[in-house]
């Protein structure tokens, strides 16, 4: 290794640890986060341990400064219900994705956008009142958007409908889905992707515009399904929500062979 290469390595390591320090305190904006992840992939294990220890130590310091507040009984009940519902949910196995951005996804952006206003939704009572209340509360957020699903020609999507409620400010959302074919979790699972216009080019193998953030995997049983959206990475400017069929546990690189639902942000 030449002296120049050593200097470059040191500079990369310093930049990585600088970002790790920023991240531990105030977090990173999307370009910084992308830079951090790129550098992390190249960093020696000692630096990765150092970086991780910053965040853990900041969490310990912050925790020690707190005084617990009383939790309302109904909020406690909802949290416990969420926890019980999550048991056995394969979404816990969802991993952070990288993505080969396909050109034909752009076609889906346009198609879903064209269908946005032509799509009608038959509303029905969601399965859980507490979940319904949460959806409605999120939907009332100032920046919240409610976007109807467009079903594709995939057989599993025949007759499927519903919508996506999403708030960028809250970094949270819900999918409401009806009529999507139930899946056998041991054979395949549905996976949500959120295309983010603030994540472009740098991580895109195909360089084809917005890069999707993994929204997690989920299963469909009969009836209406309400699925909380908790993206693995911050979503700055969503342009499209899309559901694919993937192998159990989801994928990190989707081959987008089966797209069943899409909802474009106009």
């Amino acid at each position, binding site marked *: 290794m030449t002296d120049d290469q050593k200097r470059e390595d040191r500079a990369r390591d310093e930049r990585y*640890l*600088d970002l790790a*320090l*920023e991240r*531990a305190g*105030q*977090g*990173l*904006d999307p370009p910084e986060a992308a830079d*951090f992840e790129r550098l*992390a992939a190249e960093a020696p294990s000692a630096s*990765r*341990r*150092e970086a*991780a*220890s*910053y*965040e*853990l*130590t*900041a*969490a*310990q*310091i*912050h*925790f*020690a*400064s*707190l*005084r*617990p*507040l009383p*939790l309302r009984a109904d*909020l*406690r009940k*909802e*949290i*416990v219900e*969420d*926890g*019980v519902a*999550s*048991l*056995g*949910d394969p979404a*816990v196995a*969802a991993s*952070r994705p990288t993505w080969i951005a396909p050109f034909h996804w752009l076609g889906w952006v346009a198609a879903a956008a064209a269908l946005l206003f032509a799509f009608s939704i038959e509303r029905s009572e969601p399965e859980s009142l507490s979940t319904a209340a*949460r959806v409605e*509360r999120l939907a009332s957020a100032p920046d919240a958007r409610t976007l109807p699903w467009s079903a594709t020609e995939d057989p599993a999507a025949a007759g499927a409908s519903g919508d996506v409620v999403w708030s*960028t*400010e*809250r*970094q*949270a959302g819900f999918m409401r889905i009806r009529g999507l074919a139930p899946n056998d979790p041991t054979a395949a699972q549905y996976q949500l992707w959120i295309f983010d216009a603030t994540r472009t080019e740098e991580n895109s193998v195909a360089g084809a515009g917005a890069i999707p953030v993994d929204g997690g995997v989920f299963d469909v049983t009969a009836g209406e399904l309400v699925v*909380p959206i*908790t993206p693995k990475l*911050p*979503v*700055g400017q969503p342009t499209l929500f899309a559901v694919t069929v993937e192998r159990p546990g989801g994928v990190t690189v989707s081959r987008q062979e089966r797209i069943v639902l899409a909802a474009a942000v106009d």
Partner: protein
Amino acid sequence: MRRVTSDSPTLLQRIASGDAGAIEEFVDRYGGWVLSLAKGYVHDIELAEDATQEVFIEVWKNADRYDPAIASEATFVAMLARRRLIDAHRRSERRPRIEAVEPESVGQSDDGGIDGVDLRDEVARANDALSRLKPEQRELLKMWVVDGMTHGEIAELTGHPLGTVKSHLRRGLVRVRDILGTAGEGVSS
């Protein structure tokens, strides 16, 4: 350095293995802490309650990633909660200015209101580590971690050059880490 752990499974490990009975205990143990943390970021109690619910969804999703050899449950929960709360506030283009629920100096709190021997010990250890820092360094860490100030804001407030603030913070954080024996292995970004 990896933490020494007991053989009995933690609440999160029980939850990850499908033990529904551990969920209520876990929520009772950490719910108030997460709400307190969220209240510091969003100020409004209703928003803080929503954020708390979202943080717990994140916790349920990541329960199987918890390794007691790396961090305590409290630290794991606080780390996930801070990530989510900070990200949410960055998305809303507001600097995560944190408002203390009860104004209190870091490194000087007593144990009042803390339920559970393990958590009391956790808090006491962290505060003991902070108390070993120089007062100025401790105050800088408080501004940065607890009050949510940026390096630039701290530099402006204290009159220190930005580089000095960064190096003070890093040294202080590393000192606390070394006292606490915080490991960094196995933490995913």
